[in-house]
């Protein structure tokens, strides 16, 4: 089993994801340069946080055109696991691998703090090791995490249980005050129809060591490992 962490110009959580997977989970992991179109041998790809291409046009809008994204699309179509964190989530939206779009945070400011998210479904490869309703304490750090989609899309996401994480209070209740950015339906993370592409704004790679204040992000990576062991990826 092998993970790949994509490096776009301006990615800045690439080292953190690499550290979490390689050092803390002790899984094989490689960096994948944004100009590479080759994901051979990988079972899971992480699009890390950061400011790809400076995010100067619109978050993720330029990164989606980089060569590696063509490969990521193919990889996703073949069922490979793709995890987009923060800027990675934004890129997945721009690339059309996930539905919807991001707006500026409701408060119009960058927000970095620990938030609580509730696992809405354990029926995904990213949450298989969690229990439904489990509340995770994981940090966010973004300006553009205010998820939006048309009502039909939101209804479909809801109906198909594709809203994987929601912002909640520490005791697991949905409440306006627990939503840090104004996201529609308190969405913190969603998955594609096939269930193999997840985007989320919180940073699980920052919550894998007690020394950093939380280990609640581990369950996401562990779920991926567990799912891959059960159902090995057929590589291209």
């Amino acid at each position, binding site marked *: 089993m092998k993970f790949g962490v994509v490096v776009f110009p*301006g990615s800045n959580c690439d080292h953190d994801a690499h550290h*979490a997977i390689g050092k803390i989970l002790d899984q094989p992991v490689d960096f994948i340069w944004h100009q590479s179109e080759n994901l051979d041998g990988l079972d899971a790809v992480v699009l890390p946080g950061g400011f790809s291409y400076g995010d100067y046009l619109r978050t993720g809008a330029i990164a989606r055109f980089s060569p590696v994204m063509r490969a990521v699309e193919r990889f996703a179509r073949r069922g490979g696991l793709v995890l987009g964190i923060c800027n990675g989530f934004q890129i997945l939206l721009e690339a059309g691998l996930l539905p919807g779009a991001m707006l500026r945070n409701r408060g119009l400011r960058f927000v970095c703090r620990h938030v609580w998210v509730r696992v809405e479904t354990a029926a995904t490869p990213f949450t298989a090791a969690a229990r439904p309703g489990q509340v995770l304490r994981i940090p966010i750090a973004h300006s553009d995490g205010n998820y939006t989609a048309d009502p039909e899309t939101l209804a479909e996401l809801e109906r198909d249980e594709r809203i994987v994480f929601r912002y909640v209070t520490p005791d697991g209740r949905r409440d306006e005050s627990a939503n840090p950015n104004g996201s529609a339906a308190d969405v913190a993370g969603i998955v594609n129809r096939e269930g193999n592409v997840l985007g989320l704004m919180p940073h699980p790679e920052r919550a894998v060591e007690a020394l*950093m204040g939380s280990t609640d992000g581990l369950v996401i990576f562990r779920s991926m490992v567990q799912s891959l062991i059960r159902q090995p990826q057929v590589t291209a």
Partner: protein
Amino acid sequence: MSDTTHPQPATGPPAPAEPVVTAEVAAQHGMTAEEFDRMRAMLGRDPTFTELGIFSVQWSEHCSYKSSRVHLKRLPTRGPQVIEGPGENAGVVDIGDGLCAVFKIESHNHPSFVEPHQGAATGVGGILRDIFTMGARPIAVLDSLRFGPIGEGSGVPAAVTARNRRILDGVIGGISFYGNCFGVPTVGGEIRFERGYSGNPLVNVLALGIARRDGLFLAKARGDGNPVVYVGARTGRDGIHGASLLASAEFSEQSQQKRPNVQVADPFMEKLLLEACLEAMASGAVLGIQDMGAAGLTCSTSEMAAHGGTGIEIDLRLVPRRESGMTPYEIMLSESQERMLLVCDRGREAELTGIFRKWGLEAMEIGRVTGDGLMRVLDGGRTVAEIPARPLCDEGPVYARPIAPPAPAASERLAEFGLEGETLTPALERVLASPDVASKRWVWEQYDHMVRTNTVVGPGRGDAAVLRVKETGRGLALSTDGNGRWCRLDPFTGAMHAVAEAARNVAASGARPMAATNCLNFGNPEKPGVMWQFSRAIDGIAEACNALRTPITGGNVSFYNETLGEPIDPTPVIGILGLLDDASAALGMSFRAEGHRIVLLDGAGPDGSGAVDRGRLAREFSSSEYARTVLELASGAPPAIDLAAENRLIDGLVALASARLAVSAHDLSDGGLAVALAECSFGTEGLASQVECSGNLPVEAALFDERGARALVTVEAARLARLLELAAQYGIAAYVLGRVGRGDFRLAYNGHEAVRAPVARLEDLWSNAIERVLTASLPVAG
């Protein structure tokens, strides 16, 4: 130099004729008649216009330290832990296992007033380049900020507080924009608000990086004939006379029209430059490297040549530009950001270019290292400047400016006591909600303070920020401190307090203080009163750094912090770095669990609280946060300081943390004991300080006095005896004040309950005060 190499008058192709240089033109560049003569003597002829530009920025106060140099010599700069002291891009200290910490603090005050967002952002960018120029990867940033009052009721006109709020918002936005995108966590610092900063905010940025000891790079040009390579952003007309000249004169009413002089920030470009430079340095193809900061190409070329004992020749026609028609003068003085100059090992140009191209950056060979000691600037075939590099950098003007102490203050109102038996709850609430004391959460939530996953103790969580070193598991602690009000009242004692508080903060986090960096913010050095403040502050820093064994490894001086003739409070800001052998032993300030004992440590020892000199107490208390907020006074003198006591406390705190006896620690500073107890009660829901103390001080002083060398720690009840024993071994007095309880915050003094309030109410006042001032709409809870 021989006559034949003289720069020729402007006869070459397209460039327009340069103005003739006269003493008047030089004066417009801020050069005095003596400096003009010195320049001509150094050249042995009249300078060209481009040369005048080069000299004027190189000899500007900002770049040359001409007014401060004679005083800076008094600072201690050596120690076994110091690898590089002042003079390099940043200080370097040994942190064990073949690694070193590279750190420095620098000001960007003037640009941040003229254009707060870009000014602050480029301040962050500039100090980050200083760090990675040395081969270190930046791992943390701290910001020490000063603004004018932001709230109504501060006695400042509404238009001024409104402008101060805009400056605050712009500065925080700029820091956030740059650091977040670059990918370095902004983990701490401090913010204070005082009238004197209304027309002149302070933006001091400290950056910390880590390098392999054998992978350090210095700003030296080496090897005759080696290519000089320009990398990074293209050169434009932005920032001409930006840092160098803006920061070398006072502000007037027209200063905000200098907005075009402020540089424009591109953190994405800087991120690429970081990665490309570190990769290039690791390749071995780079022999020397210098960033282009203040005075851009001028400083980078002249300093690399001067430090390397070589010459450098560059051709401006080869410099990548983003505007057409730039004159040699403009190219040499541009302060466009995110640029680097490096010397490449000859024969490895292609390899170097390849690395930069991979990161989407240009690398252009613009010249070569020479053996003649000259900084030669060509514009095509035409020589536009030719200056001996070492004299330009090292033999500039140095001034021992006149010094005069201020006239003794007229009799001033001092604090009076007399609240025995009354409740001080409202007083504590006011002090907690004072913007200086209040939580800066509104600020640091806008900073990514976690990226790179090393932040063990982040902003607001402890007295110092603590970063773990992934390679070794050790921890690095950092704190910045400086109290302008105290330095105005007594710059010598005030400066010592800045050092002592920074060191105490580092020790409270469990780290052993090891080295310092300083940013000296003062008014116009041509005024003898300002120069007296500066000289006294240097003496204070020197004495405290010697006593606390924290040598100064670098920093900068920012003079001319004046608007319309009004200087700021003298504000030396000290950053201290400390080392923890094990990052997991780091301490935060919040109480951990009910039942833990609360102990006040006093480095002054058991005899520290003898007879009280009421007159001295009133003087010292008049400069406290309580006096300012509750009594509306800022007079008297800072508390006397006892550096031996500070040392004992520091040693004791480090020992208690490494023995894992103390489970939280917080020093007593602004707002004294009462504020410290309240701050420890915040952060872990449901816990409250419930203590009782006694003494012979008036109750206001007992609760709010800011005398140094004191800290609060908590300990499990079962380990209390062991903690007291260890404290005694270090000569520290330890008073068991009470326990961590549940319910109300309670503080009794001499048998009387002086403060009682729900923690939630106190925390709300403290936590939301700044947001409340800025939005004027949040209701107060409780």
